[in-house]
């Protein structure tokens, strides 16, 4: 959503990180609060094994009779009490959210990194080299946009199933998700970077570098890349929120994280089955966590866009 307003990268990242940037951050209560929320969530995900009262990924520790325990109420059969209740398998919802957030964040960050590396590389090459290479890359982008990410996920899942030895299929799901989401996101980066590269490559400093006999790779990496980083940063932030949501959607459609190692999206999919039956906590808490995470990342991205866009200051 940001490639429209931030295509012209007039600010350097270095400049962005100077005191103006920090000042603008401290002036914005929304940014500060979002940042705190994101940090809190990330830290509790990272330290989940230390914080969580149970290990929901260890099937041997689960007691099915603990299933469907309401928050803060003792279970009918076992008498155990759980802060946020349990799900259908007797898993502690609080612990499962912490562990699920790890999965979601990992998938999100890895997918965005993958998309970013791929998109920047292809965008730079397309913009700088031009010609048939550019045509090829940009038409590949068209093909990519054509495929809804669920299809990409299924395609990769199928290929992976054929290629990877069957013993490793269960760890595969996460990587399939990462590649699928990453693949559906790179186009944004590539288009913005290409647009910016087209603008930059005719500027005097690039021409000067070229005159000095520097190689294409060096020029792209050392001279052009730094100039396109601020829009990339904005897209990356917003893509992170999108990737986390995309993971949830794919899990809803049944091609997401496995239920034995659920992500937030898988938890919501499971919880959806219990929306009418009265076990509201199974869907509410993971949804609220997902909302808090995605919303604060989005708010940060929003602020970042304004802060990095000198025309709006």
């Amino acid at each position: 959503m940001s490639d429209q307003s931030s295509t012209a990268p007039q600010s350097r990242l270095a400049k962005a990180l100077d005191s103006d940037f920090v000042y603008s951050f401290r002036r914005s209560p929304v940014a500060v609060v979002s940042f705190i929320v994101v940090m809190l969530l990330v830290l509790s995900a990272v330290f989940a094994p230390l914080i969580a009262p149970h290990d929901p990924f260890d099937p041997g520790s689960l007691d099915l009779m603990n299933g469907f325990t309401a928050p803060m109420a003792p279970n009918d059969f076992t008498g155990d009490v759980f802060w946020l209740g349990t799900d259908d398998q007797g898993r502690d919802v609080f612990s499962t959210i912490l562990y699920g957030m790890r999965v979601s964040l990992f998938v999100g960050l890895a997918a965005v990194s993958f998309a970013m590396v791929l998109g920047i590389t292809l965008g730079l090459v397309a913009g700088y080299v031009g010609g048939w290479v550019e045509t090829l890359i940009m038409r590949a982008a068209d093909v990519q946009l054509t495929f809804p990410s669920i299809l990409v996920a299924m395609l990769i899942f199928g290929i992976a199933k054929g290629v990877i030895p069957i013993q490793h299929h269960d760890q595969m799901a996460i990587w399939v998700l990462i590649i699928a989401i990453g693949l559906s996101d790179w186009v944004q980066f590539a288009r913005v970077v290409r647009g910016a590269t087209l603008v930059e490559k005719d500027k005097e400093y690039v021409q000067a570098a070229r005159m000095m006999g520097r190689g294409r790779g060096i020029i792209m990496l050392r001279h052009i890349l730094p100039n396109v980083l601020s829009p990339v940063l904005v897209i990356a932030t917003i893509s992170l929120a999108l990737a986390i949501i995309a993971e949830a959607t794919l899990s809803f459609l049944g091609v997401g994280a496995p239920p034995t190692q659920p992500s937030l999206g898988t938890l919501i999919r499971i919880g959806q089955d219990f929306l009418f039956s009265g076990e509201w906590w199974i869907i509410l808490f993971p949804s609220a966590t997902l909302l808090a995470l995605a919303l604060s990342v989005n708010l940060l991205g929003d602020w970042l866009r304004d802060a990095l866009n000198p025309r709006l200051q």
Partner: protein
Amino acid sequence: MKHLVSAAVLAAVCAAPVAAEEFKWAGTTDPQTMDPHAVNSAPVLGFLNNVYEGLVRRGKDMSIEPALATSWEPIGEGEGWRFHLREGVTFHDGSTFDAEDVLFSYERASNEVSDTRSWFAPVSEVKIVDSKTVDIMTSAPNPIFPDSIANWMIVDKGWAEANNAALPDKENGNYATLNANGTGAFMVTEREPDLRTQLKPFDGWWGEATHNITVAEFTPIQNSATAVAALLSGEVDMINPVPIQDAQRLQGQDGVQVIQGIEARVIMLGFAQEADVLKYGADAGKPNPFQDARVREAVSKAVNVDAILKTIMRGNAEPASQLVSPAMRGYSAANMDRPTYDPEGAKALLAEAGYADGFAFGLKCPNNRYLNDEAVCQAVTAMLAKVGISAQLDAMPVSNYWPELRADNFDMYLLGWSPGTFDAEHPIRFLAHTPNSEKKLGSWNFGGYSNAKIDEMLPMIQSEIDDGKRQMMLDESAAILQAETAYVPMYVQPLVWGARDNVSLTQRPDNFFILRWVSLQ
């Protein structure tokens, strides 16, 4: 004809109650064809039972009762069966029903391209005696033949031939895919595949109508939460199924009732028994422990079926001890006890078999085939972990699941089986007999369980006319399967339907929804 801005629309706009005789119901799958011989699946046969009829039909208690045949008797010493056809029956288009239609329907339904062909495997010939009498000859005595053809529906010869639908065409479709012409109590008046199918009572039906429906409309709704919402808001009068977890809550809502019963389907765990090595998990490549009956028995003791039924099934299902439910013919009452939950005993058995430290393997599971299938597999994984064997769960949609099973890609798997004949012989034929593609036996015995005694008894069971002797052999088979833990039967899947309060209906264990038993107040 399709201008539907009618009184019903105005009624809906004004939020007035819908006319009482209009009945709307929803299910998860649209019957994919209107051809009764093209697809042998419950959604199709269940729906078409309202439109087409067979020589016999099943009553409210699943018993066989006369339909297009008024009576039947065995011929000689089991050479076949003679059916006496009902007089004065007409098809929806007005043509008369007679023996020609029966012969035609036999030829149509037993053709190579028909999915219902296997029903007629015992049949050697169908002979017309006169226009109201038909002899169906079998190659061996077949005591349960009338039971096995309750879903064999009779099609009008003239209609099918006139419309180029003399044979079903599953691949390309034909006239009979979209249109129906049966003798049943209802006729299809509008058909928009996947969207809606409208039925109206057939005035010329031979039976006496006990329903008071004037128009019935079926809509497929895949998302069960959406279906529940539609029932609660009164947009539909009946849904099938109600997600198990919603049954209790729905029961407490005003204006809605929940109808519960037991389906014919037994949910069980199966093992790779032919495979020499494990295929999944940390121990992949090591010798396959499931070849040892003690390990299989340990699994059956480690799975706490009661806990699954209490939580995941919310107390709506019955435990199962054998491959068929008690409602089926030939159920073995002598073997009605299932192994008790005994984790210590399971550990002891594992130790005895040389697996005191447990092992790791792969469990395959569908995630959209049976009620809460994925959750059940998760629970099984947790329970097995408690006795030290660690299952790596791989759950997938059913369109990927069967190919995986056929390719032997499993160490253990989940299977549900509903005997099409409602007889205990059926699962022995498909699940317990040694796989033999030539004889078409054991075709769903993915794990390759094999026992010479079972193989020997199957043909004897199939041709035994004496009920007592037959039952003895069924009891013996059930005992063998139990003793060797060929499978771990867990529970009989529940049936949960939801309806508005003003609807009275009958739920049958085969999950068929019969419109002529519906009445609206």
